[in-house]
């Protein structure tokens, strides 16, 4: 037995290419099987004819793509982008200070990081339901406010755009905090001292040194929030009510209740293309930014 192991290791050792493939193999298999192939299937479906009871029938048409350019759907696409950008901005404004404090927290660092990732220990679905319990008319927040006498009748919070935004920000905030923390943590403190000696007051020190040097984390964080946010459907569905708030809900509906798989596929591809364009524009802006001259 040992001989086989030795021999195969020796064989691998002489063939660096085989070595590389054996390392790439498992991951590649997964991605091809469950990402590349399904996406190709969807691409093909998006040009096929809708089946009456779901599924597709043979044929070629671009009608589904045309259909998307109806104002009704464009408005959803636009709203999706608007919500995602606002959500990313809120996550950035809320997450940066948290990341900054954690990066400077000394021996509390690990505990604070642990707290940031703690929500991941429970399912996102469960946490979203928990938010429903907080936000609904008979929920905890309204109960407290009424008990305190601040309001007489409950405030409607659930199934509003605000509730969707609160849920999205809550869900994605850790994805903003962690990469920003990582780049702030690496920041060489002597650079801040150098800036101070050169006459930079705390504000200038932040804008001219800390922020530009943490830009890689900010960019990573923004992408990690923006992209999944554009595709989210669970939060808008549960907290926004049954309305088609975001494009993710549209796609989900086409595949489930509306049974229009080709149109759902086409909408997915349009979203994907829009995300690609948006990310490219974003990285372009970032490259040109005077803060990031590297």
């Amino acid at each position, binding site marked *: 037995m040992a001989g086989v192991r030795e021999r195969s290791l020796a064989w691998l050792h002489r063939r660096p290419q085989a070595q590389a493939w054996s390392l790439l193999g498992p991951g590649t298999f997964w991605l091809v099987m469950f990402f590349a192939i399904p996406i190709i299937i969807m691409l093909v479906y998006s040009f096929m004819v809708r089946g009456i009871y779901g599924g597709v029938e043979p044929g070629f048409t671009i009608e589904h793509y045309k259909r998307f350019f109806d104002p009704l759907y464009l408005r959803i696409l636009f709203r999706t982008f608007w919500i995602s950008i606002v959500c990313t901005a809120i996550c950035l404004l809320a997450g940066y200070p948290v990341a900054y404090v954690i990066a400077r927290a000394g021996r509390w660092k690990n505990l604070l990081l642990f707290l940031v990732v703690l929500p991941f220990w429970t399912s996102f679905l469960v946490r979203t339901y928990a938010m429903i319990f907080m936000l609904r008319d008979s929920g905890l927040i309204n109960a407290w406010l009424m008990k305190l006498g601040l309001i007489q009748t409950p405030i409607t919070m659930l199934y509003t755009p605000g509730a969707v935004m609160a849920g999205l920000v809550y869900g994605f905030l850790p994805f903003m905090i962690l990469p920003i923390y990582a780049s702030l943590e690496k920041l060489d403190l002597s650079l801040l*001292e*150098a800036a*101070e000696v*050169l006459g930079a007051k705390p504000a200038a020190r932040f804008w*001219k040194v800390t922020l530009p040097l943490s830009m890689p984390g900010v960019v990573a964080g923004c992408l990690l929030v923006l992209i999944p946010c554009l595709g989210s459907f669970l939060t808008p569905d549960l907290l926004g009510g049954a309305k088609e708030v975001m494009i993710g809900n549209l796609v989900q509906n086409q595949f489930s209740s509306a049974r229009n798989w080709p149109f759902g596929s086409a909408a997915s591809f349009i979203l994907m293309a829009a995300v690609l364009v948006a990310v490219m524009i974003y990285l372009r802006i970032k490259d040109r930014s005077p803060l990031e*001259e590297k």
Partner: protein
Amino acid sequence: MTAPERTAPEPVVRFSRVTKSFGDIKAVNDISFDIRKGEFFSILGPSGCGKTTTLRLLAGFEEPDGNGGEVRLLGEVVNNKRPYERNISMVFQNYALFPHLTVEKNIAFGLERRKTPRADIGPRVRKAMEMVRLDPAIFAKRQPAQLSGGQRQRVALARALVLQPPILLLDEPLGAIDLKLRKEMQIELKALNKQLGITFIYVTHDQEEALTMSDRIAVMSNAKIAQLGSPAEIYENPRTAFVAKFIGESNFFGGIAKRNTGNGWEVESRTGSGFRIPANPGIREGGEVQIAVRPEWMDLVRPNEVPANENSATGKVREVFYLGEMMHIVVTLDEGTDVTVAMRNEGQLIKPLSWKTGDPAAVAWLPEDCQILESE
């Protein structure tokens, strides 16, 4: 600031009984000194002696303890002033160049913070680059990552000098560059100090560097100043055994003061042999005496050829070291200790030394070459 200075030459830096603690540990313990305008002042000591804390107190990164004395810059007490409120510049040990800015932007950083008119920034950056001999045409647009260690060093220097500060702090700035370049930079730094009239305060653990460049040196040990003086005073008249050991090499002898001869003392060592030392107010009869003698002030002679007016001790040659310009001969004395004698190398190929391991020998030195040490 300039008018009163001419009448009363006020020190640009004054430490008055400054103490700085971190927890229970005193990093700087009750130290006082003045630094004169335009001086090249070095703070020298082994790691952990408090030299970096002293510099950081000057820069404003640290504040003295609650009643830990006073730090004055240009006559003003600055204990609680932030670095950006002090008129100083600093060159950091690792250069601390901003990695996201080009060379020119790095150098312009301080000028921009100080609201220098836009039109002045360009010419001043150019001038600073020329001062440190960096060609603006080649280096202005480079990123720090594209520079060699020596070039980064020059950018850091230009970034500090462009502000025309009255005081420049340098924290072991030459530690990371190779020997040849280091020697070159030492000469340039010294020239810049004289040419610009800026007070340089230079922290280093390299005694040779401190001796080469400084007008005055403060030798620090255990959070205190062990000795402050010119390089010659420090080298030729070390106050304590620590200073004698840390700056250059020394041979140590000890004993009891036996007899005052009028122009000095006769000292008897523990083994019974004796030596003479010059007069010194700190010595009384029967008291402990410790002296240091520099290796190059000693001669190596045959045991029966010791000149009459010199001190001597006999032993055997243990090892001969070839150092290039010098030869070091280590002699194990009869009493057991090792002594190093340094001689000029006059060419081992043409005029080889006649000393070999095992030769009986005597080390001889003049009484006036004894450096009498205070106990620490």
